[in-house]
């Protein structure tokens, strides 16, 4: 590629980034939410049809993306989904429904107060969600603070396989033996099975337990703190992005990760371009964490 070609590409990227930086927060929020609608799976076919169709309409018809009617329908379908799946839906399905309701209400607020309503809704939804998460982990749960939950999870939940191999002192053979033992117990072939648990895994479980409590607690405090200054705004963005980067590298829950990014970026004014770009990069990174098996590759590459 010639220097001129690189120049044109560079200019094109710069123009696109400038356009992105100039997008009104409401426009950015609804567009990203439409991406979420189109790409996240819904089990019930008629709800999937409704939500995906509305997301596509929002993406391909820019004049409709901030239409009150569109977001009333999205909020309606999201609420219907919650009613149908209320005992099996993950937490982010609930948070998504609240966000859709918030977007619809924000679009009904007079223009002059709209961006502020959007930012405050996003801020409080994040703060409250993390407050309840910390309440469950730190106070209500009988087995989180003492480290039992993460010990059990690292040993029995396949989603944390790479983390236990990378930092828990386990070998693939240990993991296989544990998985077999767990399957035997769950299938009722034996009542009890002793699991292989290296001392390093106990230390890892303790570290994750406290990191989770501290990082989630920091997000809750930062977002619910009624501060107005640059410092508290920086803390909000910093704690949320740090949580997203550290959590979704291992817990590949794209739905929750994306939603937090959408709520986070909705609090950025157009002039906070760098922060907006950091959130948009995180949107991509959360997705990349799921499709690129980097931790698995790391496990293979690292000398044992």
């Amino acid at each position, binding site marked *: 590629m010639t220097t001129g070609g690189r120049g044109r590409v560079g200019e094109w990227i710069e123009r696109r980034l400038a356009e992105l930086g100039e997008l009104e*927060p409401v426009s950015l929020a609804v567009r990203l939410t439409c991406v979420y609608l189109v790409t996240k799976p819904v089990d019930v076919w008629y709800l999937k049809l409704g939500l995906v169709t509305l997301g596509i309409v929002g993406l391909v018809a820019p004049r409709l993306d901030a239409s009150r009617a569109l977001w009333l329908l999205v909020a309606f379908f999201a609420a219907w989904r*919650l009613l149908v799946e*209320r*005992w*099996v839906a*993950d*937490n982010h399905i*609930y948070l998504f429904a*609240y*966000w859709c*309701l*918030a977007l619809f*209400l*924000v679009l009904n*607020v007079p223009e*002059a*107060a*709209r*961006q*502020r*309503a959007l*930012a*405050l*809704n996003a*801020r*409080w*939804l994040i703060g*409250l*969600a*993390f407050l*309840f*998460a910390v309440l*469950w982990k730190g106070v*209500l*749960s009988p*087995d989180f603070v*003492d*480290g*039992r*939950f993460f*010990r*059990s*999870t690292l040993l*029995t939940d396949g989603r944390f396989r790479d983390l236990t191999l990378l930092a828990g002192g386990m070998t693939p053979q240990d993991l296989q033996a544990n998985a077999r*033992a767990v399957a035997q*117990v*769950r*299938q*009722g072939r034996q*009542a*009890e*099975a*002793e*699991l292989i648990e290296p001392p390093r895994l106990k230390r890892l479980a303790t570290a994750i337990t406290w990191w*989770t409590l501290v990082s989630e607690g920091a997000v809750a405090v930062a977002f619910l703190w*009624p*501060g*107005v200054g640059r410092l508290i705004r920086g803390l909000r963005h910093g704690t949320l992005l740090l949580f997203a980067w550290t959590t979704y590298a291992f*817990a590949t829950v794209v739905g929750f990760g994306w939603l937090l990014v959408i709520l986070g970026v909705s609090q950025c*004014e157009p002039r906070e371009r760098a922060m907006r770009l950091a959130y948009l990069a995180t949107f991509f990174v959360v997705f990349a964490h799921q499709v690129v098996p980097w931790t698995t590759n790391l496990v293979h590459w690292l000398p044992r």
Partner: protein
Amino acid sequence: MKSDPPLVDSSERPPRWAFLACGVLVGVAVLQIVIAFTTELTPWKGGGFGMFATSDTGGNRQVRAYEVFDDGERRLSLPRRDPLRRVMLNHPTEQRIGAYANALAARLERRRSGLQAVRVELWRASFDPATGSYRSEPWHEYLLELQRPVAPAGARK
């Protein structure tokens, strides 16, 4: 308490109804805590943000079912992707276990002769930190006796 400055060049305050979603979040989360403590709802579900807070998840709850005949019982192979089963494991109630047993019976009655009853067991697995072992314990049991036991194959018209 100071409030946030406006994000745009206006000081207009949004109306309170614009924050209804935050109120709904708090209401549902408080209700979920009450339901989780008064019934057997797993803290992971119900909108209370209790995911990754406890090992008492739907994944650590198992269902086993048996078809009961005059001469004994046989364990059934159960489909994993069954919505009724998912709801029952996350929030088991007598009514839901009964409905699950009824659904199994309805499926079996068409092809099993001599079927007397359907028995459903729920088990709960947990990790014992003292011994480092994983174990499963019986938790609920439900026996659905069929009012008109299915006649042996030879007696059927």
